[in-house]
């Protein structure tokens, strides 16, 4: 696949360079997060999605400004791909007042209401009902929007998932169920938790369009998401994408990875989504070594700026602890 979504060849190369840049932004941001965690600058739980960038970037590439996104606790990539600044995300992980959630959420609870990015949910499957409600409201208001809900294969075992797919199908809601199947629910391999591991097949049993996608190929993800979103916007009801991907790093920073082979991880690393697209563009002559280095340098500088800003940012005053428990109404 060398050409995406019927673009002219030159525009297609530029577009794929944009996709590559977005994946590199997420990768370098998260690699820095891991370093900062080791340096005790970031605390709490930190779940990075290194290896899964193609899913976040490919899906977000087809969304409009008015669309809504609901995500999980492994959501830095979704947030950045949705357009949230590295500054607001990094400051949140530092627990600073300039963080998107003013230090009350941390890594797992990133929000940006202006971009309709509704978190950042640390209860597996807990975001799915929110996505149903967002889509229901948009449908009742006849807004032509789609709500994307990201969740993992682990959520498939939760009752809330099945309640929500049924509701979306029953009410023909404009929801894209974006299942990031990375084969592990924390340390539990999918075959140890799911009696039937073909997730798209099971989702289809609710009477919705559902198909598997190579989640390491950003172009394949984008094309599948585009097809799904077109169908949803046309009133075709919800769609389910099983995005087959893999997390290269541990579940969180506390994970000794006793549950999987290093060889398995190495095999998946051969399909690194950034390397795949880099090699493809390089082979086509669309990306020189100099351009690649320049891209990495620019992104590194962006990450550096976010870290410097987070370091310098003020803490939320402790006396403001109880603000926002209830809505603050204008005096």
């Amino acid at each position, binding site marked *: 696949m060398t050409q995406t979504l019927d673009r002219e060849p030159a525009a297609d190369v530029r577009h794929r360079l944009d996709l590559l840049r977005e994946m590199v932004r997420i990768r370098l941001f998260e690699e820095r997060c891991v370093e900062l965690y080791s340096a005790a600058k970031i605390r709490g739980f930190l779940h990075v999605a290194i290896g899964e960038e193609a899913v976040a970037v490919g899906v977000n590439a087809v969304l409009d400004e008015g669309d809504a996104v609901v995500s999980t606790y492994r959501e830095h990539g979704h947030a950045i791909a949705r357009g949230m600044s590295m500054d607001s995300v990094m400051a949140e992980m530092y627990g600073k007042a300039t963080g998107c959630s003013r230090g009350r959420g941390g890594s797992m609870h990133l929000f940006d209401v202006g971009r309709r990015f509704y978190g950042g949910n640390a209860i597996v499957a807990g975001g799915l*009902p929110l996505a149903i*409600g967002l889509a229901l409201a948009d449908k009742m208001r006849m807004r032509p929007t789609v709500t994307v809900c990201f969740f993992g294969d682990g959520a498939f075992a939760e009752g809330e998932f099945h309640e929500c797919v049924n509701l979306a199908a029953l009410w023909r809601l404009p929801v894209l169920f974006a299942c990031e199947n990375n084969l592990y629910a924390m340390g539990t391999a999918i075959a140890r938790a799911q009696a039937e591991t073909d997730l798209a097949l099971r989702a289809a049993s609710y009477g919705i369009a559902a198909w598997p996608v190579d989640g390491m190929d950003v172009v394949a993800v984008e094309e599948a998401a585009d097809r799904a979103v077109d169908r949803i916007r046309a009133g075709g009801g919800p769609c389910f994408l099983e995005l087959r991907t893999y997390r290269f790093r541990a579940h969180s920073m506390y994970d000794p990875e006793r549950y999987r082979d290093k060889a398995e991880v190495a095999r998946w690393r051969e399909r690194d989504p950034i390397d795949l697209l880099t090699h493809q563009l390089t082979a086509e002559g669309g990306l020189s070594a100099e351009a690649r280095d320049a891209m990495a340098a620019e992104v590194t500088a962006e990450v550096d700026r976010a870290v410097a800003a987070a370091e310098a940012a003020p803490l939320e005053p402790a006396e403001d602890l109880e603000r926002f*428990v209830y809505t603050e109404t204008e005096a």
Partner: protein
Amino acid sequence: MTTLSTGATPVPAATGTVETTYREALREALREALREDDRVFLMGEDVGMYGGCFAVSLGLLEEFGPERVRDTPLSESGFVGAGIGAALAGLRPVVEIMTVNFSLLALDQILNNAATLSHMSGGQLHVPLVIRMTTGAGRQLAAQHSHSLEGWYAHIPGIKVIAPATVEDARGMLWTALEDPDPVLLFEHGTLYTMTGTLPRDAGHVDITRAAVRREGRDVTLVSYGGTLHKALAAADVLAGSGVAAEVLDLRSLRPLDDATIAASVRKTHRAVVVDEGWRSGGLSAEVSARITEQCFYDLDGPVERVCSAEVPIPYAQHLEQAALPQVDQVVAAARRVVG
């Protein structure tokens, strides 16, 4: 589009009063909300074609259609969470859960999402959602339909908890709850649906932050809410016969608690009995009692008494069920002990 946020409730010309019931008052409140604000919709199990498990929404489907009186599958977590999502997107959902026991299936959504999203997002998100549910015992429905768990919910910062005990509050609390930018849980006691009362024809919204003195007295304060209010009032009648003037307080709001009204009453009477259909251990009665002690210790003439449900799952057989619930004679006895 008329919206609730204008605060401009259309008030028809007052033409006397109407006889109504708690159930009809709740229905009229829903009808008014659906009529006046097109962001409002009702959602829950059997709220539409069936007319509501307790017939509160009977007739509303015919009037407002299936989009706005929306039957759901038996998916409490799914549709309560959908209510939260719809509220995030600017609507004003009213979600009905058949009984508080069933709400436990949606507790994840209520606690982990509805109650947290505003704070956890640094004030970016708001959840203007109302969740209505039936609570309480007295109808021989046994342990999975009869509990009083509103005290649990009152434990949770980020939500508000209200309990209409009168026909007037059944009529007026919903509108005010829908005007609130945060999630409000409204507990309807199952024995009150058939209670009758008189309302002004133009009855409208009521404040939902203050406790109400339902009967004035100088000797002892009986603190109650919801279904137990009527037991406290009956106990006050009995006590009056023996010369004890009991003041009866209806909490109305269980979160936040109206400390000022509670304290003002206890400072006057110097004695208090808390009547709560919840269990005693770790319950709402413990919270009220502790606050009285914190705020009025030197005004008290004796320890605060509590009359609560027995610490058992509520049983089916009538005599067992009644033995488990707070009763008028227990309230009377407790009041006499503190009056001395």
